[in-house]
């Protein structure tokens, strides 16, 4: 269980994390979702005591991380970037980490096997691919067989097989009753892995709810309707929180009325409907809506004139 109370981190005048409170419960995978620069990594660094909070506090299993007698057995953390000396081998890195807690070498070999690092364990970490680096980070996180596992962007750089492996691992750890806290800026990944979502943007918590609830709250159900008499159907449905968009001459998108109500209106008004498709809002859409106002770095389309100018110069 991770509990953050009024947690804040300021770097000079810039506020990275702003009065954040949340609880991560054991037995499920909690996703920590937010755009780049939203404060995910800073929050995780504060959980394991690498950064001191400017205000507030965060505890793991009731104590500050640094106050635990055996921190690696309480919390296993994979932090954003490689945290390994590039000239040391993976095996020796894990051995040195294990030594601080008197964790036997047999456990080191176990996590190497678990993470599929066997063939490269004796090689220098500097030569590792991003994916191998992530696997080593995960191996390190699992070293102490911890109650709480914190993984910052664990699927970064992993191949599809590796992504699936992390997904299974996270779910498996949660099924054993452990607390699993997983960050990502990829909502699609979260939709597949997380049970509960904490969404952060610009250092503030935007949402903290079960994943189904976030999807249903944010994306109102839309229905796609094809009819040969759209004008009549629009008249019949209009008003009362219902929004209609005519996308094509015979295609409507209806928000605010479910398919049953649309079918009833069509029947009552003798309008022929030849398609009626409920559209499930994706988590991605829900996420875009949530974080729309809180993205730190917006990308903009190039202005047309600039594009034309550059093409002109190219000639």
């Amino acid at each position, binding site marked *: 269980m991770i509990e953050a109370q009024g947690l804040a981190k300021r770097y000079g005048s810039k506020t990275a994390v702003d009065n954040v409170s949340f609880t991560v419960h054991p037995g499920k995978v909690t996703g920590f979702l937010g755009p780049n620069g939203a404060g995910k990594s800073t929050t995780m*660094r504060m959980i*394991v*005591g*690498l*950064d*001191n909070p400017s205000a507030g506090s965060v505890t793991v299993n009731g104590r500050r*991380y*640094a106050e*635990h*007698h*055996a*921190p*690696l*057995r309480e919390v296993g*953390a994979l*932090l954003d*970037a*490689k*945290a*390994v*000396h*590039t*000239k*040391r*081998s993976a095996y*020796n*890195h894990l*051995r*040195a*980490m294990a*030594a*601080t*807690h*008197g*964790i036997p070498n047999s*456990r080191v070999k*176990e996590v190497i*096997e*678990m993470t599929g690092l066997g063939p490269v364990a004796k090689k220098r970490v500097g030569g590792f691919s991003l994916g191998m680096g992530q696997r080593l980070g995960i191996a*390190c996180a*699992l070293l102490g*067989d911890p109650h709480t596992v914190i993984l910052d962007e664990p699927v970064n750089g992993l191949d599809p097989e590796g992504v699936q*492996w992390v997904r*299974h*691992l996270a*779910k*498996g*750890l949660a*099924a*054993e009753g452990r607390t699993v806290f997983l960050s990502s800026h990829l909502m699609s990944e979260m939709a597949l892995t997380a049970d509960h979502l904490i969404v952060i943007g610009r250092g503030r918590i935007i949402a903290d709810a079960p994943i189904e609830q976030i999807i249903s709250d944010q994306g109102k159900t839309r229905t796609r309707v094809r009819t040969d008499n759209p004008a009549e159907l629009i008249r019949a449905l209009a008003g009362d929180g219902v929004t209609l968009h005519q996308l094509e001459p015979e295609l409507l998108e209806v928000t605010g009325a479910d398919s049953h109500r649309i079918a009833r209106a069509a029947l009552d008004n003798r309008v022929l409907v030849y398609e009626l498709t409920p559209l499930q809002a994706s988590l991605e859409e829900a996420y875009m809506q949530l974080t729309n106002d809180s993205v730190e770095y917006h990308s903009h389309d190039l202005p047309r004139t600039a594009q034309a100018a550059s093409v002109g110069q190219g000639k």
Partner: protein
Amino acid sequence: MSHTAVAASKRSGTQGSGVNFIRVLKSEWIKLVTIPSTVIMVSITVIVMIGLAALFAWQTTVLLDLQGDPEMTAQMQGAPDATSITNTIPGSGLIFGQLLIGSLGVVLIASEWGTGMIRSTMVAVPKRIPALLAKQLVFAVVAFVVGAVSAFVSYLIAQPILAPSGLEFGLGDEGVLLHIINTGSVLALMAVIAMAIGTLLRNTAGGVVTTIGLLLILPILVATLLAGIADWVPDAARFLPSSAGEQMVAITIADGALNQWQGALVLGGWALVLLIVSLLATKKRDV
């Protein structure tokens, strides 16, 4: 396979399974010996120190043997007697040894920040001070052994070189044993100073430049340029780390100079102050 493997691994007992200083020491020892370049650098330091001492021994025989009267030649060079030159041959590699060990001391800690390793270190030992102390202690012991062993081997090698000129000496001669041991002590204290600087600056290049500046450049600046500024400057120069180190390995002490123990006190003071400042700063700052 993954989560079933986790499930299969039994939860280890939690008693006596936490962090303690002995375990952190062991971890830091593993970290020291598993970087190949560190091991190479330490070996090079030993070889260079012994090589320099042998060279110095040979050069001494040439110099002092010139007129067939070593005592007079030594006095003409400003030394009180021949033994004050010959008997410090074992530690004559110290001047280079301290630069190599100093650079390595900076690299060992600053490279942890450079590579990101420090995050792993501080997550495993979140109280931070034990991790730094263990790293300091492990490397200081290595530096001591490097210095003392190099000096002792140099002593052995120097004897056959000096013997033809009748300049050989024994471990029992006055100050020789202390000289050999203190060659190690100076290196150990220099290692602490360098690693503390590396801890404070968190940057290899900056740390090495600062350390070499303190040990090599500053004494030269003080002796040449700054000495004329005020009367107290040459006086204060005695308390620089390099000067204090030189006194620790001196056989004969000039009038008004620090003796071996006073030198140790001054150099130890530098090491202790820098160590404490580096520990407190690391405890307070973000990693």
